């Protein structure tokens, strides 16, 4: 369902600098509370329920998402840059599938 996760991480940062990381993913975030206008049946829930960011394999940010989160969720957080490395962002869908994106950071 979801496609094209996007992240924005500065390419370089000074040691100890606090950087802002932004992410956006396209997803319908179906709450499970809406009804089909024709049949009256509930539309089954399908949301991204977890968003995790790992840096060099170590988890640095994680959040659980719930049905009130909007479609096409945007998430931004701050990160203190101490060493160069690679971020991995992972979104986990209700159906078990995951979407991921990588970005690297150079600290000088």
């Amino acid at each position, binding site marked *: 369902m979801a496609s094209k996760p996007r992240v924005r991480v500065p390419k370089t940062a000074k040691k100890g600098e606090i950087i802002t990381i*932004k992410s956006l993913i*396209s997803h*319908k975030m179906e709450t499970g509370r809406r009804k089909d206008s024709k049949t009256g049946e509930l539309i089954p829930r399908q949301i991204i329920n977890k968003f995790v960011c790992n840096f060099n394999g170590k988890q640095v940010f994680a959040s659980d998402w719930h049905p009130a989160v909007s479609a*096409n969720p*945007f998430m931004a957080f701050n990160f203190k840059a101490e060493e160069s490395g690679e971020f991995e962002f992972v979104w986990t869908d209700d159906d078990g599938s995951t979407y991921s994106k990588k970005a690297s950071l150079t600290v000088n």
Partner: protein
Amino acid sequence: MKGEITALATIVALTTGAGAIAFAADDWGKFQVEDRRSGYTYATAETQAMQDDEFANPAMLWVEHGEEAWNKVDGEAGKSCNSCHGNAAETMKTVGSTYPVFAKDIGKLENVEDRINRCRTDNMKAKAWKYDSQNMLGMVSYVKRQSLGQPMSVKIDGEAAPWFEKGKAFYTQRRGQLDMACSHCHVDNAGNMIRANTLSQGQGNGFPTYRLKWQKPGSLHRRFRGCNKQVRARPFKTGSDEYLALELYVMWRGRGLPVETPAVRN
């Protein structure tokens, strides 16, 4: 007593100061031309920030989708948009600010959606896209995005004149159970509250607009339908002649305002 007077004087000074600040904030820069104000100026600071940041603007996902579709070969003729039109940044540069236009070949007014579908069916031999489908929203957003910042300037003379008159009449025609015309909200009461929402001038320069309520972008015709339903009138179909004429009139109302596609609104 003297203390009280001093206190009062301070309050007066503070109030005047606040007034001056509010006045300064009323300068909307490029988002205002004479008395015409973009919907941007009525939006909250958070919504404006979302539109300003190309990354945070969720409608850019559709623009990207449109860019991919631009280069994708589709239909029996084996063509993509790119095959004929090449670099959209050059060839589509004025589309967002000048459409809808009167198309001589089909003898009627045509907006970007219709033009894309005509290209698809006639030149690409591909299936037409539905209004407000992901493909259509993506392509229209991508095409109009190329005109970002350009002043709106639709042509209303010549063969477009009868359409313009029709649109103008639609705009001031009372309709629906509430017996309201477009102008009652968007001319007479722009800036006032309607229940919990601020009414804007109803400008079309940011469409397809990402509406937070819709959780996705939508066409101007979808917005027309919503407005018509709210005054409890039966809406016309998206792409109908009535809405095409209205689109021309609405775009003319916003003449000079910059193209903001894709805008973000509440």
